[in-house]
């Protein structure tokens, strides 16, 4: 089984649109939307929801006001400024404490040291996990609650679920639509992936950001391929990116022109290659995918 993760560093380069097309071109695959706090793949890939389950994230502390004696032990020990003194209706201090759930890191230190056991430390439901069917195989996706944490944990759980499905149904490929950035959900999206497809754009920001995410990919020992989206917006910059790939031995999978058909397909809730198979961008994505399949054919089998 192979795992390919699509990343970019910079947001909005077209990861999700390209993932939707690739998921429509690959004949037998599981696709994951790992951009859990701004999930979009479900909007552009026709699917039928078949399973949902709550996402149990981390714990959060909560003070039972009746048991709080106001000793301030929690206030003094919290490293995240989550504890504050509760005010009454007239905004006068009550001498008792409360916890801001958004600031709470879920470390449990306050609950451990509370002398009266007034601090409850409960596991939170932070979102929902979904499994859907699509034309070419299952889609594993999720919705992280607003302002919730643990996106990395959620991504790891989605990937685990996808592996189970792939194993059971003998599906040879998992494609993951990664989040932007290089932080915890990105690390969770690319750890143990066989290969990364970096989707960049010919802009000063796109080039800067792709270099950081490529460094991360290298640290994590994944094979790295790259394609340029909206390549004709700045041809000189696109040439520079190709040079960069050449110089750094990154396999270049192709370039996709700016095409209004991409947004049109999104508006129709379909992938580009399904909605507009003969558009220029569609032809280019097909070529990118053909190259990526060929590149992945050269990968050594994983030991585990």
């Amino acid at each position, binding site marked *: 089984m192979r795992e390919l993760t699509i990343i970019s560093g910079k947001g909005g380069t077209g990861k999700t649109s390209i993932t939707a097309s690739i998921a429509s071109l690959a004949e037998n695959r599981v696709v994951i939307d790992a951009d859990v706090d701004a999930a979009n793949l479900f909007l*552009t890939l026709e699917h039928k929801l078949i399973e949902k389950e709550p996402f149990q994230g981390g714990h959060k502390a909560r003070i039972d006001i009746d048991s709080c004696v106001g000793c301030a032990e929690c206030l003094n020990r919290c490293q995240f400024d989550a504890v504050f003194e509760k005010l009454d209706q007239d905004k006068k201090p009550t001498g008792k404490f409360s916890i801001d759930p958004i600031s709470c890191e*879920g470390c449990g230190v306050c609950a451990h040291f509370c002398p009266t056991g007034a601090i409850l430390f409960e596991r939170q439901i932070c979102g929902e996990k979904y499994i859907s069917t699509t034309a070419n195989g299952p889609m594993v996706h999720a919705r992280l609650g607003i*302002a919730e944490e643990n996106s990395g944990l959620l991504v790891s759980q989605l990937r685990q679920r996808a592996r189970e499905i792939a194993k059971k149904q003998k599906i040879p490929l998992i494609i993951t639509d990664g989040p932007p950035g290089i932080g915890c959900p990105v690390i969770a999206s690319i750890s143990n992936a066989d290969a990364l497809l970096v989707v960049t754009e010919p802009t000063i920001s796109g080039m800067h950001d792709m270099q950081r995410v490529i460094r991360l990919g290298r640290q994590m020992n994944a094979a790295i391929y790259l394609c340029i989206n909206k390549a004709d*917006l*700045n041809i000189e910059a696109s040439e520079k990116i190709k040079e960069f790939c050449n110089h750094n031995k990154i396999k270049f999978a192709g370039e996709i022109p700016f095409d209004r058909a991409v947004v049109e397909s999104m508006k129709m809730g379909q992938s580009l290659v399904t909605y507009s198979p003969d558009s220029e961008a569609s032809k280019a994505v097909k070529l990118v995918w053909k190259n990526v399949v060929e590149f992945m054919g050269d990968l050594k089998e994983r030991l585990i």
Partner: protein
Amino acid sequence: MIITVASGKGGTGKTTVAVNLATIAAEKGSVELFDCDVEEPNAHLFVKPQNITKKEVSTMIPSVDIALCNLCQECEKICRFSAINIVAKKIMVFADMCHSCKGCLMVCPTGAISEGARQLGSVLTGYSKQGFKLTWGELRVGEAMSPPLIKKVKDEINNLYNLISIVDAPPGTSCPAITTLRDSDFALLVAEETPFGLNDLTLTVEGLKKLGVPMAIVINRAEESKGIIDDYAEHENIEILGKIPFSKEAAKICSKGLFLVEEMAEIRAIFQKIYQKIYCKIVKTENKGEIK
């Protein structure tokens, strides 16, 4: 006054709006710019700051003196993040997992644990040719946790009445974006008229309601006719402060790291209007505060 530029979806033009707005603001008064997208900071690529100073930033992780450790496992028990464990009768610290809660330090009965450090990245500052100060964070590649570094960037904000701080937020609606948006006086949402753009805008608006931050919208790469964002904004009663029309010329200018307000007169006029509207809004709210 802290004005944070946010979006939910990546690539809608947050950085473009932030740097161009800062340029306009610098012509009218005192402004500082902060880039809190520490995973992928880009504002400095446009601002090209001079006289850069760089400060390394780290977070606390436990450092164990093996000679003092009696393998009591108290640290392992309190740690919720599997960052300190007894493996084969030896205490091991998994630095990348640590959230710096100091629980292990607090429970260790023998004083075997002291404060060590893990590099988070750096906080940098420099000055634009227009004269405003830019502060930005750069997360170390391989570091998973961006919120602690975002907090360090925000620590550099001087929240004074007559100083405008424009903050460029990271994409998404989870901890990095929320850490950035907290304590903002005003959020400027950069939206794009696509189904993805609308979906993620909706999530960000819900987040801002939770945080109690007032907001308004700027539509980037706007079409001429009314679109899905107009309908949504009307429904939610959120003001649209301006629309930056789609043009390949603008896209090309941004791709080179140049300022739209310096290259295109019509876009400069749009940014001036947006800035005026924000200024009126926040000055008005501030006056209300003073009357109280």
